């Protein structure tokens, strides 16, 4: 996670270790203290609160099922495991291990994300026992043939975008802030994204992605949130619909585990080679 600048904390007035029962109250307080006048400033502050509130989980491990559906409704399934290490003052490190389809079993993907400079990415190909450093200019490319691009799944550092707050609006009965963000990094497939931030959880619950021609490309809905360690909200389900192709991908997350003592050593090229 990017370490927040001191003035951010002053602006938001956010208390990091807010007791669980007062989450809503603290969220509302965060909201109240955010600048109301300048949409740019307000957008950035919202992003910083999201980032700030998702700090301190150290490491996270999950199981992931991806269901890919084409326009005719035919399904294809992938099973993966994802481990993530929170890195202070930089982007997170993650290790993704493929269990199915069986022909890619044992393939693993190691990624060091960075705020603005290019991410570092390695792929392990078990048939050859080969670790291959791969280009990071594939951000807009589909992940495993799905409707998720690499850039949709990497850690969302504050510096990766510029922000404009658009409006507050209710979404499915929850109060949300709608923020437009424009990628500040190279090779994005998007001109902009609209993000609906649930103020109770301070998590994006809906994202609209606009392609390079600024037409609506995809909509992501994140649902079935659970709070872990009294602080960290995680969805059990993320559904991405591609409006242009009619295809969709569902991510089903299970077995969230935090603070299991993973360290940098679990995210190096040696760990990639023996990932199972």
């Amino acid at each position, binding site marked *: 996670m990017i370490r927040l600048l001191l003035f951010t904390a002053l602006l938001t007035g956010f208390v990091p270790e807010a007791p669980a029962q007062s989450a809503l109250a603290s969220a509302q307080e965060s909201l109240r203290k955010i600048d109301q006048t300048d949409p740019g400033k307000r957008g950035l502050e919202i992003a910083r609160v999201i980032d700030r509130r998702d700090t301190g989980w150290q490491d996270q491990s999950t199981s992931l099922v991806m269901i890919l559906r084409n326009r005719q409704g035919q399904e294809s399934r992938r099973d993966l495991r994802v481990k993530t290490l929170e890195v202070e003052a930089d982007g997170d490190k993650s290790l993704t291990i493929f269990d199915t389809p069986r022909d890619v079993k044992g393939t693993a993907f190691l990624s060091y994300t960075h705020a603005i400079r290019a991410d570092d990415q390695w792929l392990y190909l078990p048939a050859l026992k080969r670790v291959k450093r791969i280009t990071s200019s594939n951000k807009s490319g589909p992940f495993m043939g799905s409707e998720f691009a690499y850039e949709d799944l990497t850690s969302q550092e504050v510096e990766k975008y510029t922000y404009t707050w658009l409006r507050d609006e209710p979404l499915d009965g929850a109060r949300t802030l709608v923020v437009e963000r424009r990628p500040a990094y190279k090779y994005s497939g998007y001109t902009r994204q609209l993000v609906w931030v649930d103020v109770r959880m301070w998590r994006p619950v809906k994202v609209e992605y606009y392609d390079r021609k600024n037409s609506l490309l995809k909509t992501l809905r994140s649902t079935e949130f659970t709070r872990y360690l009294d602080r960290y909200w995680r969805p059990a389900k993320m559904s991405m619909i591609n409006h242009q192709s009619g295809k969709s991908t569902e991510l089903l997350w299970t077995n969230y585990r935090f603070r299991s003592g993973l360290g940098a050593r679990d995210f190096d*090229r040696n760990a990639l080679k023996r990932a199972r």
Partner: protein
Amino acid sequence: MSAGVNAVRVARLAGIAAGTGLLSAGLLWVAVLLAALPGRAESLEISGYAGIEPRLFFHSPTFAGQIHDNISAVLQPEFYSEWNAGRDSVLFTPFARLDSADGRRTHLDVRELLYQRVAPDWELRAGIGKVFWGVAESEHLVDIINQTDAIEDVDGEDKLGQPMLNLALIRDWGTVDLFILPGFRERSFAGSGGRLRQSLVVDTNNSSYESSAGDRHVDYALRWSQSMAQWDIGLSHFYGTSRAPRFVLDTRRPGPPILIPRYDLIHRSALDLQATMDNWLWKLELIHESGQADSHVAWVGGFEYTLTGFAGTRADLGLLAEHLFDSRGHAGPNPFQNDLFAGLRLALNDVQSSEVLAGVIQDLRGDASLFSIEASRRLGDRWKLELEARLWSRVKQHDPFKAIARDDYIQFSVLRYF
């Protein structure tokens, strides 16, 4: 499942595939290891693939005894068990091929039978293993630990399992891998019925060695590797029996002359380097080798440039070019002494992971060209189709490819993963 059952199961399955004393010894060792840890093994994971591979040749055979086409069945299961929360593990990967045309291509091998221990700043591997070094695509020059299973394919990517003791020391300044390699694996060669061979059959029963210890010479290797910003670098040294033999013509015995492989002792220092800069991957593999034969240098280096979302589609198109050089020139055994590789890699990024890699290696003196196409596509969740074609053209009399110049082929693979 208990470790005892695991051990019995692993031993039984391995017993089926056993063919060498080395294998039996290794197996016994793993069985003892597993049995010594009752109840510790947390699971036995079985995966792998089986397939059918017809290979069709475009021209009639060059040499007497060669059979026109062939069909193969291939099986490579993988057994894996770990305990101590993954800090200890055993991996067993036997391999079997049954070939219709070439008795030698029908072969068994233990690709891996490896115990691994992982600690915070070191990793130990003991048994039969497989190691890859390198960055280039057209040739794997630096990769030396494992012998090439040359009877499998001409691309040098199939490897025989290598007995090894490997200690990796993991430090902030990089990883140091130490290898002790007891026991040499001879390169495999096609038999009399097989295509893709020299005019004379290679007599692998009478191989000769520079070392008086023959194929029991203990080889050593050391490698330092590190990743720094956009650089990935590896420096290595190998001392031991060369994986690539010279050939000696044996006419002393009665009957037709045969080729005897001769394996020298070599010192080989190597560098592999990749710079990853946005869409560009810059790659270099460089070796210096000395031994009984003249010392020489060789390299393969070039780039891969990727066009993400090629032509407004989901596909990625990679453009590859590499220069291959060997200072021994045309007189040497390496067919790629001054050649240029140009290739295209197309990944459709579709649900079936469809991919094509097509390339040509062109001799810069205007002689032989080698064309190659590899394509693959998944069918459903467990099947995969692969296509591989290799064509040689304008091969001249002196070229190392001369003997296989008429062996242009196309191979289809239907593989089932489990």
